[in-house]
């Protein structure tokens, strides 16, 4: 049952699977993002309170969700590399970092642009915004630590440890709107069974969320292949792989 897990520890297997998955992820992502964007911009009715400005949610919420998901992936993959010494864990962690950081930046920028018309300010030091900004700094810290070591394997392990230490921030971001009085609104979609949004607004959002996740998968597969090649440059299987 666990053979697929063991196979993922093998660099040539990961290289091949990533190559095969990329076009699927990319195509499905394009469809989901395409539908979500069009439906969100055109077909979803304007919000009662926020008017057309609420449409920013279609890029802001998926970006924010992905920033948390990517960091958690990075920490888990790094942990797998650290604890079980599976090198592919470090490859996934290293590949995920720049993607997650870019989405964190996207979340912060779109959130800021949304805040201006809604709250009257581009920025507020409220718990969710602050902890998301801290998340960006944590990404930068991890990405700076890895190349600082002469021995890349040591750099991987140090970066993995740091990302695990920082993962405490992720639940803080998520629950900040629950734990503190925050400017930022609470959960809209997470209430299972009775979301606070009507269907015509909800479906494009879910589609964008799915689309961003699939996009993340596609880009991750491309980057992981690069990481695998960089780490396994001396291996014999690489000879065949790069000839094509």
């Amino acid at each position, binding site marked *: 049952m666990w053979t697929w897990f063991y196979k993922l520890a093998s660099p040539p297997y990961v290289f091949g699977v990533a190559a095969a998955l990329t076009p699927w992820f990319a195509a499905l992502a394009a469809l989901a*993002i395409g539908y979500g*964007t069009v439906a969100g*911009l*055109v077909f979803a009715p*304007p919000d009662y309170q926020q*008017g*057309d*400005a609420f*449409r*920013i949610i279609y*890029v*802001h919420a998926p*970006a924010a969700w992905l920033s948390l998901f990517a960091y958690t992936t990075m920490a888990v993959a790094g942990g797998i590399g650290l604890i079980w010494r599976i090198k592919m864990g470090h490859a996934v962690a290293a590949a995920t970092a*720049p*993607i997650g950081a*870019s*989405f964190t*930046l*996207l979340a912060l*920028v*779109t959130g800021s*642009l*949304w805040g*201006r*018309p809604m709250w009257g300010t581009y920025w507020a030091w409220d718990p969710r915004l602050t902890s998301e900004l801290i998340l960006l700094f944590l990404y930068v810290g991890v990405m700076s630590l890895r190349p600082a070591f002469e021995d890349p394997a040591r750099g991987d392990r140090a970066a993995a440890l740091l990302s695990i230490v920082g993962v405490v921030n992720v639940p803080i971001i998520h629950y900040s709107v629950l734990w503190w009085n925050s400017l930022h609104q609470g959960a809209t979609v997470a209430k299972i069974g009775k979301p606070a949004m009507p269907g015509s607004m909800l479906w494009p959002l879910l589609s964008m969320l799915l689309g961003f996740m699939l*996009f993340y998968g*596609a*880009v991750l597969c*491309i*980057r992981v*292949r*690069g*990481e695998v*090649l*960089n780490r396994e*440059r*001396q291996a014999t299987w*690489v*000879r065949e792989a*790069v000839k094509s």
Partner: protein
Amino acid sequence: MMSAFWSMGGYARYVWPCFGFAGAVLIWNLWSACGYLAAARMRAVRALAMGAGENV
């Protein structure tokens, strides 16, 4: 009617930069990842070419 779409109920200068930046981030991710893979490939090819002289 199209102008109503572009003006986004008056919020155009917030909504469109958001979507624009989102598009830019998506494009950057793809471009940067492909570049990373290409550079890694070239480094691997070069390493193999250098090693080919020693091993048969």
